[in-house]
């Protein structure tokens, strides 16, 4: 499903984020912590590098036989009494889920954290259809109360201070609440425990689905994934097609790198393997299990330029190391998925034009690719997206003119060398004390905050003749 285009320019959104003191501090603390935890986890894990290579290989190999693996997954889910649905668009996915809710008479749905359901804007649709959606992941619960979208792939409320959370809870519960994470967690536990026990419908995503056995895998730390898949009558799992893994052996490779990359834990607290609905001998479990397989732009990338991005495990490691994300946070990106991988996913879901600006929200430093447990070469694809924007001729025309002029100049060495004398001439009014502090027009973007060196009195090439003589 396409998200509506953002009106505010990226630069303005970024500036707004940069001016947010709370956000800045929260981001700094959180990302620095995550980076340290990840480094420590892999530091004591010598097999880590090899496993990352293996994980990457499994993702690619899976894509090369995706149809077979999905066929097997579907057959195995159905064999165990589950139902599989196919959603080409986000709209369709929503309709499928609403239909299930309607048919089963659900009035309240508890949700375990699922970026896929964020992507298709499921909560709004549920609410509109009279099914109250209740987010149960603490971070998601917080932003649901705040009517915000997640700002980080795994820590959705990372931009909120405990004071802000306390305020939210106080407003919701109509009473004073201490700004203490322990207290706040206890409150959430009690509030949500009731919901878990009353809900008719449990909705989750899926971190993985094992084709060999028809098992959906949920990775959580809080236990809400277990609640949501055991207590309500109906369980619906929404999953991008790229999450399928062939075997249990493959699954373990991913589990060995996922939590380490995300939070530095060896394993998340709960890894829950769900193989269909409750079986006859069981006391508990849903009577119905539904798996909604989601396309929403993914299938087109199997043969497309963003194929590599299909390997993403949604661990968030790239966000934590990204110099841009660390400064502006998740909301400034403007779409469901923020950070480096978020730019690629946004292009996948909404087309390359949607990232006309976002593809430049990167200094191409490569820290993301370094941190990625499945070695996705994000910078390469960002450059490719920039190329697609260029090829579609939708960049602002002044920019195109400047770059074309530059390209032409660089192809004509004689003219390029005129850059020396010409530069010195043009800069003359602006050079003070050997540096340039202010420049007009577009060049002011640099000089607003940084000095610029002047074009040298004699460029290197102008000095070469003398240098060459010196060498003889």
């Amino acid at each position, binding site marked *: 499903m396409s998200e509506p285009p953002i009106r505010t320019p990226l630069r303005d959104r970024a500036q707004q984020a940069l001016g947010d003191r709370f956000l800045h501090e929260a981001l700094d603390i*959180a990302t620095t912590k995550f980076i340290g935890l990840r480094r420590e986890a892999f530091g004591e894990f010598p097999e880590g590098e090899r496993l990352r290579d293996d994980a990457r290989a499994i993702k690619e190999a899976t894509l090369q036989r995706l149809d077979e693996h999905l066929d097997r997954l579907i057959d195995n889910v159905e064999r165990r009494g589950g139902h599989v649905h196919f959603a080409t668009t986000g709209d369709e996915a929503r309709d499928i889920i609403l239909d299930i809710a309607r048919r089963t008479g659900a009035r309240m749905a508890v949700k375990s954290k699922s970026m896929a359901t964020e992507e298709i804007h499921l909560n709004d649709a549920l609410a509109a259809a009279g099914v109250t959606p209740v987010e149960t992941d603490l971070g998601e619960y917080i932003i649901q109360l705040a009517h915000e979208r997640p700002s980080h792939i795994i820590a959705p409320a990372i931009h909120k201070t405990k004071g802000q959370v306390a305020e939210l809870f106080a407003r919701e519960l109509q009473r004073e609440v201490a700004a203490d994470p322990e207290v706040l967690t206890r409150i959430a536990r009690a509030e949500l425990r009731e919901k878990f026990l009353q809900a008719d419908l449990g909705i989750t995503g899926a971190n993985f689905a094992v084709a060999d056995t028809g098992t959906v895998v949920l990775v959580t730390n809080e236990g809400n994934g*277990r609640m949501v898949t055991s207590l309500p009558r109906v369980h619906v799992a929404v999953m991008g097609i790229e999450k399928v893994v062939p075997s249990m052996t493959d699954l373990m490779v991913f589990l060995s790198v996922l939590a380490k990359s995300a939070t530095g834990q060896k394993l998340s607290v709960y890894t829950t393997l769900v193989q269909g609905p409750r079986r006859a001998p069981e006391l508990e479990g849903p009577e119905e299990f539904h798996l909604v397989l989601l396309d929403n732009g993914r299938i087109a990338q199997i043969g497309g330029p963003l194929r590599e991005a299909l390997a993403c495990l949604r661990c968030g490691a790239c966000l934590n190391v990204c110099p841009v994300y660390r400064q502006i946070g998740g909301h400034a990106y403007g779409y469901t998925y923020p950070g480096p991988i978020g730019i690629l996913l946004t292009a996948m879901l909404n087309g390359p034009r949607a990232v006309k600006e976002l593809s430049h929200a990167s200094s191409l430093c490569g820290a993301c690719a370094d941190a990625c447990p499945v070695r996705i070469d994000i910078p390469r694809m960002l450059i490719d997206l920039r190329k697609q924007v260029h090829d579609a001729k939708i960049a602002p025309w002044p920019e195109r003119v400047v770059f074309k002029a530059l390209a032409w100049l660089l192809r004509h060495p004689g003219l390029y060398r005129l850059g020396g004398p010409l530069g010195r001439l043009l800069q003359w009014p602006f050079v003070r004390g050997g540096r340039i502090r202010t420049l007009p027009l577009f060049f002011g973007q640099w000089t607003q905050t940084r000095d610029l060196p002047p074009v040298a009195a004699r460029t290197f090439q102008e000095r070469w003749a003398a240098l060459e003589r010196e060498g003889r």
Partner: protein
Amino acid sequence: MTTRAEFLARIRGQMATTRGLVEAATASRPARPRERLEVLRRELVERRPRSLERFRTEFERVAGVFHRVATVAQVPAVLERICRERDARSVVTWATSRLGVDAEPALTAAGVAVHAMPTAVPALDERQRLRDIIARADVGVTGAELAVAETGTLVLRSAAGQPRSTSLLPACHVALFDGAALVETLEHVGIVLEAWHDGAAPDDGGAVINLITGPSRTADIELTLTRGVHGPEEVHAIFVDAGLPARPHA
């Protein structure tokens, strides 16, 4: 609505346009998983003492509380102590035949109500009543099929007499395990999982396998770690030297 055929056809269409990025292979799974598991189990027997040490270290690292007893007869005393320390009034356990120990006499004598889950499945309203009991219990006692040394993880399978929320709803979870449950690495867990799914599922088996690594936690508020968000805030593991009699699925 998109049909399976349409969906797969689109996927195949896209697959036909490319050979992929590089040569790549999936992980090699054992050709005969159950045999492989047998071999692994034999290998692991000698390494048990070290595995147990490692498990203890990693389990405590994720805030698990480790206990060790010589025989199954000593388990009730440990449970009693845990209940006392937590001021627990009510305990739920897996079916006694699944657990391999009957803690009811000792705990009842100490004033703690014990509810062992039935192996047979009752009618819906009785199931609801049992669910409420579990939800109100202070301690949940289960077995554990695997104890993973590398990560301090306990692996539990749902089954008849082994309801899922025994290890989830009460604020304190106690798991009993013995040497036969010890494996060393996540790779070993993979071998076990392959074996468990190789061939027909046990008749009394359930639909869920849980890998549990410590108590429930979150750091969603300012990255401050808190425990017991939705799941248990405390996890205990009691290792029985002499072994547990009833193993749910060998």
